[in-house]
């Protein structure tokens, strides 16, 4: 972590602080003020995009702890989101529980299911673990279809909008505030989780799990803990997503989403909290760009050009990042920052 010249820590509290300089505080507060002011001058469409991006960030942050920090690749993250989504949906719609009870329940249920599918990670890794988590995705979706009587199966499930103390988050702006609050809290939490003993254990496991075990890190505990935390994040994101649309269906959690979440990590930068945010924002914006450009291209070239562009653009972006910047946008951002801090005396 590079800091501007002349920033020294004089006591422990300063040394561990996340924000070290006045300008960092200024940027953070300015950004929060900007978020607060967003509903004033943005249309509902842009607010929707920002809300979805916020939810995606929560999900990708969880995946980042699991995959980016602990090295346990999960290609079933959308499945875990579905678990949270349906738990929360059933609790509020069928049992009429309030949202603020359903959300933690959704997070916990997703975490528990994550633990179950995390069990193979104790014996296998790399490609085999990818396969096990792909299996998790398909099995979860199948179980949700089987439980048709409570989940609605393929027909979907109507979910009420969240309500806290009589206030219903009905308008786009209010839901935007709700999601952004949770996203900011989730980001803060993630940034701190990775600095704890558990976070350092995750990194040790990622770098070499045998060596980590020899050093006294309990693989059983920490691998499962990583799965639990990652899936809790997914559960929260899934719950927020279905409450936003006031409807839960399996089309919201396709297998390809699991893949794109990993793609976001690659584009943003694995093992970096800002990376998860960069990745989620940039790939979601790319999607929006495609929805704008696609129809234009379709009318010029051929009818299927829009569908084709959506597939090719995502695939190509991930390929280009893997080849030219495997450490993602976060690393690029760090190098830019280091450059302007030293400019014009770079040596």
């Amino acid at each position, binding site marked *: 972590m590079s800091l501007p010249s002349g920033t020294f820590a004089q006591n422990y509290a300063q040394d561990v602080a996340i924000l070290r300089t006045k300008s960092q505080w200024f940027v953070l507060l300015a950004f929060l003020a900007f978020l607060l002011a967003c509903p004033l001058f943005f249309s509902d469409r842009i607010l929707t995009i920002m809300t979805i991006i916020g939810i995606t960030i929560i999900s990708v942050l969880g995946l980042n702890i699991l995959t980016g920090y602990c090295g346990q690749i999960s290609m079933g993250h959308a499945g875990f989101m579905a678990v949270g989504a349906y738990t929360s949906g059933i609790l509020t719609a069928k049992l009429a529980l309030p949202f603020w009870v359903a959300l933690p329940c959704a997070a916990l249920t997703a975490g528990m299911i994550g633990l179950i599918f995390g069990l193979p990670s104790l014996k296998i890794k790399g490609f085999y673990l990818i396969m096990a988590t792909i299996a998790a995705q398909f099995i979860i979706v199948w179980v949700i279809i089987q439980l048709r009587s409570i989940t609605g199966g393929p027909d979907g499930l109507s979910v009420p909008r969240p309500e806290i103390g009589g206030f219903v988050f009905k308008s786009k702006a209010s839901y935007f505030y709700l999601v952004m609050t949770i996203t900011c809290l989730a980001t803060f939490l993630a940034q701190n989780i990775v600095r704890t003993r558990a976070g350092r254990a995750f990194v040790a496991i990622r770098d070499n799990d045998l060596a980590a075990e020899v050093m006294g890190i309990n693989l059983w505990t920490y691998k499962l803990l990583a799965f639990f935390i990652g899936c809790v994040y997914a559960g929260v994101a899934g719950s927020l997503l279905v409450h936003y649309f006031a409807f839960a269906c399996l089309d919201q959690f396709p297998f390809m989403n699991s893949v794109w979440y990993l793609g976001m990590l690659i584009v943003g930068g694995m093992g970096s909290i800002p990376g998860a945010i960069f990745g989620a924002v940039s790939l979601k914006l790319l999607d929006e760009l495609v929805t704008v450009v696609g129809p234009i291209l379709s009318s010029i070239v051929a009818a299927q050009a829009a569908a084709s562009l959506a597939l090719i653009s995502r695939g*190509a972006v991930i390929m280009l990042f893997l080849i030219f910047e495997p450490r993602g946008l976060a690393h690029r951002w760090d190098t830019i920052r280091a450059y302007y801090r030293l400019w014009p005396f770079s040596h």
Partner: protein
Amino acid sequence: MTFFLQLVITGFALGMVYALVAIGFVIILKCSEAFNIAQGHFVMIGGYLGYTFLVTFGLPIWASLILAIVAAILMGLLIERLALRPLVGQPVLAVVMMTIALSTVLEGVATLVWGGEYKTYHGVLPTVNLQLGELSIPSETSIAMIVSIVAVAGLMLLFRYTRIGLAMRATADDEQVVQSAGVRVTTVYALSWVIASVVGVIGGILLGGVSGVMIPLAQVGIKAFAVVLLGGVNSIVGAIVAGVILGVLENVAAGYLDPLLPGGGLASVFPFMVMIVVLIFRPHGLFGLERIERI
């Protein structure tokens, strides 16, 4: 009993398709330790190429086959050179994500060029219909079986008796030692991608002639990984045996259990259940080599 046997035979046909995808996958894995998620897409592209050459251009079968193989070789070379070679030495996830990205690009290209529609050229290719008493064996099964057997026999001879086959096996074991022995590792990698791509494309042409081709065909690729894991990731024979086992099991289980389950759809999830069980109890599969790790 007839119901059961018919289920077994349809399952066998499905299993042979799995095996076709799995063989290509195992070849790449054997040589370059890269996991090719896009193998199912090679089959899909093969089917569409067959449609273009046989129907759109109206070429005879032998010419179409040669052109398709040339196209497959080019595709394999291009993919290896542009997408995979920059990733040598990168972690598993990078390679897997690269092949997934590749698969979406291939899907996008197929959508753009062929409109993503269902295409078939039934009757253009010679079909083999076998009749065993009351049971009819679909020509899909016989064709896929013939291709699989020829491919496997050819590849086994290649791996066992030729110089390049030896180089490929050695590369899988330790690329640095092989390099110091004077083998061009890049050639070996390129060759493995070319072989996998050719196997996939030929399989696709034959499948397209029997059951038609469309984009979801590529998703057979994902299910085929259950086959690969069951058979053991580095065994070609394992891929075929496991393909048949899984195809038959899937079909029989779905045939008998689906009426009992309200939502149905067991067939689509069965391979994944097998996969989880295999991964937990026998991660190296039936015929694979057990992995030994050192720090």
